[in-house]
């Protein structure tokens, strides 16, 4: 994204905000009509009051009956106005919060489709700040815009009519001069927009910092870095203070400035009106003092909404800056789409296709050239929310039905995995995996060993298709994995990573992540097999104990046991175990070996491990170094070779 958001964001963003409003056009129309009614009523009540006062002329000259009826009318109309007013607020609230909900849903949905190659480069805090804080600010601006913009506009039109009916000349002066306040407001807004952007950026930076440092607060404390952490925070804090002060102060200039323009307008009306009174005095079409005071009152009424609107404009600028950042997120190209036609055997509902199934031959496959994911953004391409939401619905129901069948291994995957001269690198300068080829036959156990940083974890990224290969192909059962849907492919794999991740929720919810419909007995059986049952039983609420996102009181090893149980519950035809037992003690590991062995029987398994006891059982051992397979074979043959592997193996007894 090379475009500078400060220049392009407002116009394009505005269009997209309007697009987001489209599904609610009926409600908005309703709100506009009700606003118009409110304004008409609020302008009419003073007229009634005036009439009532006209009936109170002096001592013994009061028309009590007339006054009484008018007062009754005022009371009834006031009640009616209040009711409509409340209705307008409720409608506006509804529209505004729903639009914001839609945008959040879409932003989050987009996040689910963004490639890991992009996500891995983002800060979690920054993204969270976009979806939470920015959207929130946008909501505030939008609501304010709604509540004040329409009533303002209607008031302007209403008073304009009254003024024209009194004296077109003076009305003309007012009409010509008042837009000055718009000019002033625009001038200020266009100059403060960059301040808001800067503020929003620094705020994002601060959120990211807080996220990173507070997220690792325990490390900070362990190294007595509290003061330093605070000092660095303060540095960003000070920058934010400066930038916020600028943004807030300069934008708050709008209101006083437009008010000044209004007082000039007011003075002009006084001047011309009074002069007109003097020069036409005594003539037939005399301009009276009464007309002047009425005009002045309306001039005041007329200019007031301009103030409010320009106040809203600044708030809206801020909101647009925030919306711009969200749209920027939603403009990020998504993963290359899954092939549309799913081969027989999968049977999942297919989202409606709009064209030919894209055939991914090598040269077309770069992320930039993917259909639906141009830099313009899928958002606009889909013509607003209504249709997009429909399309989403299809997508989702398809996804859900696929999800429902998680747990039953995809029957059509035998588990032959073939890497055909695969090359890959995270960045162009440092080639990592080059021309890597090997085939894993169904049911084989493939151990991947090698020094850290040799590309083991990268290989897993490629097998799971978290990243796409740069060259060559990976085939499962002879089919290029890019011709399968990601869901089909991943349904075939069970994965346990060294970095345990558990979600906040109960132990049970975590265990059934891959198989939501598992029975209690199945869950318990999996846990017994993974030797997790005994410690779960001792937790305060057993399987229903709630753990936090970081696993709370569980040790790293216990978390790993849970992750293993999680996979044991679904048993897909292929397994990826990336240092899956690194934090589990060997005694427990030995005990779960049986379960592991049973689990791996008949399943193609990729095992990254440094424990040679795990490795020696493997059918094939790939010894990797610097992205290349340097040795291949089984334990015995590799030891005989006396190469890198045997050196590695013997080092276990070095100390």
């Amino acid at each position, binding site marked *: 994204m090379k475009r500078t958001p400060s220049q392009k964001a407002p116009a394009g963003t505005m269009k997209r905000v309007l697009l987001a409003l489209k599904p609610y056009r009926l409600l908005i129309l309703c709100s506009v009509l009700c606003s118009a009614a409110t304004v008409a009523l609020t302008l009419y009540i*003073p007229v009634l009051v005036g009439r009532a006062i006209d009936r*109170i*002329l002096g001592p013994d000259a009061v028309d009590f009956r007339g006054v009484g009826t008018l007062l009754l009318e005022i*009371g009834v109309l006031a009640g009616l106005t*209040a*009711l409509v007013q*409340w209705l307008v607020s409720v409608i506006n*609230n509804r529209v505004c919060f729903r639009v914001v*909900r839609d945008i*959040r*849903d879409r932003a*989050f949905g987009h*996040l689910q489709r963004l490639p*890991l190659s992009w996500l891995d480069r983002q*800060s979690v805090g920054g993204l969270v700040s976009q979806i939470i804080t920015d959207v929130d600010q946008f909501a505030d601006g939008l609501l304010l815009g709604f509540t004040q913009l329409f009533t303002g506009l209607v008031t302007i039109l209403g008073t304009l009519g009254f003024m024209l009916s009194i004296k077109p000349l003076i009305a003309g002066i007012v009409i010509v001069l008042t837009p000055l306040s718009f000019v002033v407001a625009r001038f200020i807004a266009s100059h403060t927009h960059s301040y808001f952007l800067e503020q929003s950026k620094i705020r994002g930076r601060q959120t990211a910092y*807080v996220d*990173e440092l*507070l*997220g*690792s607060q*325990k*490390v900070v*404390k362990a*190294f007595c870095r509290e003061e330093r*952490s*605070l000092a660095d*925070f303060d540095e960003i804090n*000070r920058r934010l*203070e400066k930038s916020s*002060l600028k943004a807030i*102060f300069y934008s*708050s200039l709008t209101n006083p400035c437009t008010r*000044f323009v209004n*007082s000039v307008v007011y*003075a002009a009306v*006084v*001047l011309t009106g009074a002069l007109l009174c*003097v020069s036409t*005095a005594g003539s037939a079409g005399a301009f009276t003092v009464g007309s002047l005071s009425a005009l002045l009152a309306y001039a005041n009424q007329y200019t007031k909404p301009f103030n409010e609107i320009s106040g809203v404009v600044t708030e809206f600028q801020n909101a647009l800056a925030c919306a711009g950042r969200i749209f920027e997120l939603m403009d990020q190209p998504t993963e290359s789409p899954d092939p549309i036609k799913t081969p027989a055997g999968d049977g999942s509902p297919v989202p409606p296709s709009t064209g030919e199934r894209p055939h991914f031959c090598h040269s077309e496959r770069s992320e930039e050239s993917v259909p639906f994911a141009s830099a313009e953004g899928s958002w606009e391409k889909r013509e607003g929310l209504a249709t997009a939401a429909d399309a989403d619905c299809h997508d*989702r129901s398809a996804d859900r039905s696929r*999800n429902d069948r998680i747990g039953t291994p995809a029957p059509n995957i035998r588990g032959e995995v073939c890497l055909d001269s695969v090359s890959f690198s995270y960045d162009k300068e440092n080639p990592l995996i080059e021309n890597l080829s090997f085939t894993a036959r169904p049911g084989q156990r493939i151990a991947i060993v090698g020094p*850290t*940083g040799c590309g083991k974890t990268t290989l897993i990224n490629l097998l*799971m298709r978290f990243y796409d290969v740069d060259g060559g192909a990976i085939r499962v059962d002879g089919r290029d994995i890019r011709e399968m849907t*990601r869901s089909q492919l*991943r*349904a075939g794999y069970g*994965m346990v990573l060294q970095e345990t*991740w558990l979600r906040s929720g109960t132990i049970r919810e975590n265990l059934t992540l891959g198989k939501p419909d598992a029975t209690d007995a199945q869950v318990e059986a999996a846990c017994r097999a993974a030797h997790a049952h005994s*410690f779960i039983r*001792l937790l305060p609420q057993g399987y229903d104990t709630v753990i936090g*996102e970081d696993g709370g009181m569980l040790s790293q090893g*216990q978390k790993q046991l849970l992750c293993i149980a999680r996979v044991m519950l679904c048993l897909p035809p292929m397994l990826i175990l990336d240092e899956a037992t*690194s*934090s589990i*003690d060997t005694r427990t590991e030995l005990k779960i070996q049986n379960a592991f062995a049973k689990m791996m029987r008949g399943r193609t398994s990729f095992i990254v491990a*440094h424990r*040679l006891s795990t490795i020696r059982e493997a059918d094939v051992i790939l010894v990797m170094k610097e992205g290349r397979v340097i040795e291949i074979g089984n334990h015995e043959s590799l030891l005989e070779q006396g190469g890198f592997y045997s050196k590695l193996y013997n*080092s276990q007894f*070095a100390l």
Partner: protein
Amino acid sequence: MSELFSHLKAYRKECVLGPLLKLAEAALELFVPMIVASVIDRGIGLGDRGYILRMSLVLVALGLLGLIFSVTAQYFSARAAVGFVTRLRHALYAHIQGFPYATLDRIGIPTLITRMSSDMNQVQTGLNLTLRLLLRSPFVVFGAMIMAFTIDSTAALWFVAAIPLLALVVFGVMLLTMPMYRGVQEQLDRVLGTTRENLNGVRVLRAFRKEAAEQQRFEEQNRLLTALQQRVGRVSALMNPVTYVIVNLAVVALIRTGALRVNAGLLTQGAVVALYNYMSQILVELIKLANLIINVTKSLACAKRIQSVLEIQDREQITEGLPGGDPALRVELDRVSLRYPGAAGDALESVSLRAEAGQLIGVIGGTGSGKSSLVNLIPRFYEATEGRVLVDGVDVRGMDPRVLRRKIAVVPQKATLFQGSIRENLLWGEEEASDELLTRAVQAAQAEEVVAAKGGLEGEIEQFGRNLSGGQRQRLTIARALVRQPEILILDDSSSALDFATDAALRKALGQLPQRPTIFLVSQRTTAVRGADQILVLEEGRVAGQGTHEELLESCPVYREIHQSQFRKEAAQ
């Protein structure tokens, strides 16, 4: 809340001047009708064109003066609001720095992050608006009432009746919505948590193909948030219409009273017009106030959430006069038990240990046996529920935790690095460390190739060290600890991602550290601890054996079992 607002003190000048200038501006506005009146009476009445021109210019001048007042006021209020929140953010961040581990566990990090960000923003907006507008409304409302009394004290009684009623509505809505806004903020917390969690667990979630389920989960949370927002919106939207009705009923009453009194000759028609105008002015102000109140209510709800964190006074207490121990021992654990708050059982039960300077202490045991809990007691990350922990013969509860922690370097189980250069990360160990020291630490930690791969000490590390593999991160966190040149070095199972060759080389290097620290080596492998001077075998929080490798093989069945689980097959080779 007083503690929170004490941070406003530095902005006392701005907080007084801002609203005062706003009042001055409002007062200027009151002159305008008088000037217009004189234009009508003198200018038009006497046909004095010069006077009309002069007075028009006076109007412009008043506007200009108002502009200057209000711009200054805006500046003061923006400065106070931004400055106050900057200080508050600093105070909260600093406050969190003092929380012990247990407190961080209890509150949870994500909610602290919301409080640092979106709650703070809301407080800033609220304060800014308050300073700009809050004084103005009561000023105009009470000013109008006083003016009404100067006209006719009987009719003015309607003002006296209406104003408390209006106040009741305004404050009633405020009180009613405040807890609702807090509910909204809490739900926002949950939406934030869901988003964070999704991003952190993206690999696992995609591996389990949970994208759609995650979307559903998020949408549910989001829907709940929207529902809460709409509910509070409906209530707070009551304020404007209800006050409108009250004011208009007051107008009706006023005109009725006016009619009676005019009829009796006690009041003029013009006076009724004036009274009506003052009542209208109140209405205009109330509409402004209603918008303000919503914002202020929200801000107060957020301020309360910030305050509630500031009120948590958990601090590591330093207790004077605790009995000492043997100063010759570097670390002594004396029948120590630990139970985490809310846990069902003890994590450690009556564990004793005596470590001399320079010794290598191995801690071994099964998953969840309490190894990490044990070493976490030494830097006083957690406090023993029973028994004593002594470092250099002094009870850790009697030491300044920072002094204590400077003696110790920890390599945590989870290898966490921070955004910045490798050098910056290593300097966490010791800020003044020389390059030579850094290089030696990197060598000892077997991290030379990691540093080289990233282009030397200036090589950039991304947030959370994402651009490094698990093993690379572990080696750098070990180097970071070695830079500290500690008296006590704690390695909490921190070589789990290293291959055997690297691990062996690392252990060798650790044994040759020039300053000879006491090393606590937590591991699950007997190979790692076999060279230790003393090995502590833990089993479900209790000591199952203590001694050297050979002694334990002899006497401790648990240790023997662990050892055999790792060596049986290899030994058969």
